[in-house]
């Protein structure tokens, strides 16, 4: 029997890990949080347990394969209330790159009440610790225990890693002014994280980070570098925010200076690539739609 929680603000919260068919990336990083002193969960007042009956917080990795689904649900059921679920990596959150496979049953929130999500592929140990801190605070708050101010470890987790690295592949940033709407990013995205919507006033770009593999293929193949990776790796969030972890932008349509029909503007970056620079002529032609441009440059429409 668990003792009453009310006075146990300093109680060690025990973490129980469930692998729901993961590629082992997130699990290897979780192993790091149990063995490497810089990332040890002990500094958060937590420890790992192999006994679900002892646990307070459940961490789930993997896309929830058809094969392990029942075992995962049974394992979860063995953890007594009150309990918190953290999903580690984008796979349990959305299926990640494995979504829509016959062998994948997830996302996990179809079956279980998820509390905290830590996106990444895999997320850094610092991100996992931030997620665990969030979960621990949530657990304590639900017991009516006063939540302590962020621990020294958590604040140390912000910003750079130990070697001052800024190269971490984190949140993606979209610059609408540089986008030409070629949709190459959507084409090369393995996670299905990018969608374009044609709207009345423009072309809307949406990148949903909870299914992003943070691989940077989109950025690599973007001809004008309208999409780039930032080093913002801290993306742990509560379940309520799950669908709002997006990067969005709209390329507004502009009227053709010849006939007035709305069209996608030609980004300056594209002109630089194609024409190595911008002359007065290209400046003029770029404000015209394809039909008007044909009329102007070759005297008529060729079909």
């Amino acid at each position, binding site marked *: 029997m668990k003792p009453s929680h009310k006075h146990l603000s300093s109680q060690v919260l025990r973490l129980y890990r469930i692998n729901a068919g993961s590629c082992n*990336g997130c*699990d290897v990083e*979780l192993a790091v949080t149990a063995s490497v002193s810089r990332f040890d969960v002990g500094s958060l007042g937590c420890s790992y347990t192999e006994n*679900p009956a002892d646990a307070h917080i459940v961490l789930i990795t993997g896309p929830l394969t058809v094969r392990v689904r029942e*075992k995962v649900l049974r394992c979860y059921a063995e953890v007594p209330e009150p309990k918190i679920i953290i999903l580690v990596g984008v796979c349990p959150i959305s299926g990640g790159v494995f979504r829509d*496979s016959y062998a994948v049953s997830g996302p996990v929130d179809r079956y279980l009440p998820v509390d905290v999500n830590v996106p990444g592929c895999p997320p850094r140990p610092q991100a996992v610790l931030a997620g665990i801190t969030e979960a621990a605070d949530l657990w304590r708050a639900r017991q009516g225990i006063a939540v302590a101010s962020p621990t020294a470890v958590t604040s140390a987790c912000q910003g750079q890693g130990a070697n001052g690295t800024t*190269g971490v592949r984190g949140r993606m940033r979209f610059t609408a002014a540089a986008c030409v709407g070629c949709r190459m990013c959507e084409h090369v995205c393995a996670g299905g994280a990018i969608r374009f919507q044609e709207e009345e006033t423009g072309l809307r770009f949406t990148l949903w980070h909870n299914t992003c593999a943070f691989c940077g293929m989109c950025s690599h193949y973007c001809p004008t570098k309208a999409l780039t990776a930032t080093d913002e790796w801290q993306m742990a969030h509560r379940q309520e925010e799950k669908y709002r972890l997006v990067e969005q932008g709209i390329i507004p349509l502009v009227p053709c200076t010849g006939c007035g029909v709305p069209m996608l503007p030609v980004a300056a970056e594209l002109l630089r690539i194609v024409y190595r620079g911008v002359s007065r002529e290209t400046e003029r032609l770029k404000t015209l739609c394809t039909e008007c441009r044909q009329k102007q440059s070759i005297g008529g429409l060729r079909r």
Partner: protein
Amino acid sequence: MSTKTITLGPSQLALEEPMYFRVETEGEIVAGIDVMAGQVHRGMEHLVMKRNLYQNITLLERLCSLCSNSHPSTFCTAVEEIAGIRIPLRAEYLRAIADEIKRISSHLFNSAVIAHITDRASIFKQAMEVREIMQNTKESIYGNRMDLAANCIGGVRYDLTPESAGYLTKQMERMKEPLDELYRLYTTDPALRERSEGVGVLSRQNAVDCGVVGPVARASGIDYDVRKKSPYGAYDRLCFTTAVETAGDVRARIMVRLREAREAVSLIDQCLVAMPAGPVWADALPEIPAGEAIAKSEAPRGELIYYLNTDGTDMPLRLKWRVPSFMNWDALKIMLIGEHIADIPLIVNSIDPCISCTDR
């Protein structure tokens, strides 16, 4: 003879991945074993056929995060073979660097797990801390500690500036002594020695019969390393000794991996010196004609083979791969017979099985 189902499952840290075994025992001795796979089956062979070649580079890297880079690099090699693309020399070295960095990290992780299983907690922590040098290196150079996103069709997606090359050189220098020290520890620590010497033996003949690959094969005296037998990328210009042992026991497999990790440091040094200036990828969006090709590489766990059939579009017609771990499970049937059930986790981990690779 009683049949007991021993499950090494998702809740144990010793095995990060879920795999189940049905073990037949005579008392406390193993008389038979059946491997029950499929927990991590995500249907990837089906998924890759519904994704284009570009998406597959990212998808295949996530077959398994420990081997990770070997998958996209071998896949890209197969595409390049079909398209007749010759990747720039600089890219060949950069691919080798990525592969060798993963090899070191993967071998250190396995070594750490083995120390953990044999209750050598201090050695476990030491191995994990040494591995952190590699993890930080990966994060600095590639932006992620596990999945490097290093490859594209036609070459690599990353480059080394003089600054980052200098950083990599320093990191490799920092690895040399600790790796030598770990080798000394793993081979001379009395407790480890007792648990690993003469345990889980796979004779050379059995190794040949089972068709095992990688460190498991080399620990049983089979001198086969894809980097030498079927050279690819920069390996036809790099100098290294294949790590071969003959005892075929758990200890021999530990030794092979630690020697390979140390050798990998030297390979990275060679690449940094030999790498010429120049582009790192051949063409932005190459034409991939209809055709087929086989590509092989030496992943951390052994021979990885890819077969690709294309039809001129950027969707694969057929894509099949066979991971090294797939060939090694069978050998467990021989290694475990006659051993004590308490040694099962140790012997299983000594083949460094990659369940996510196998289940795919």
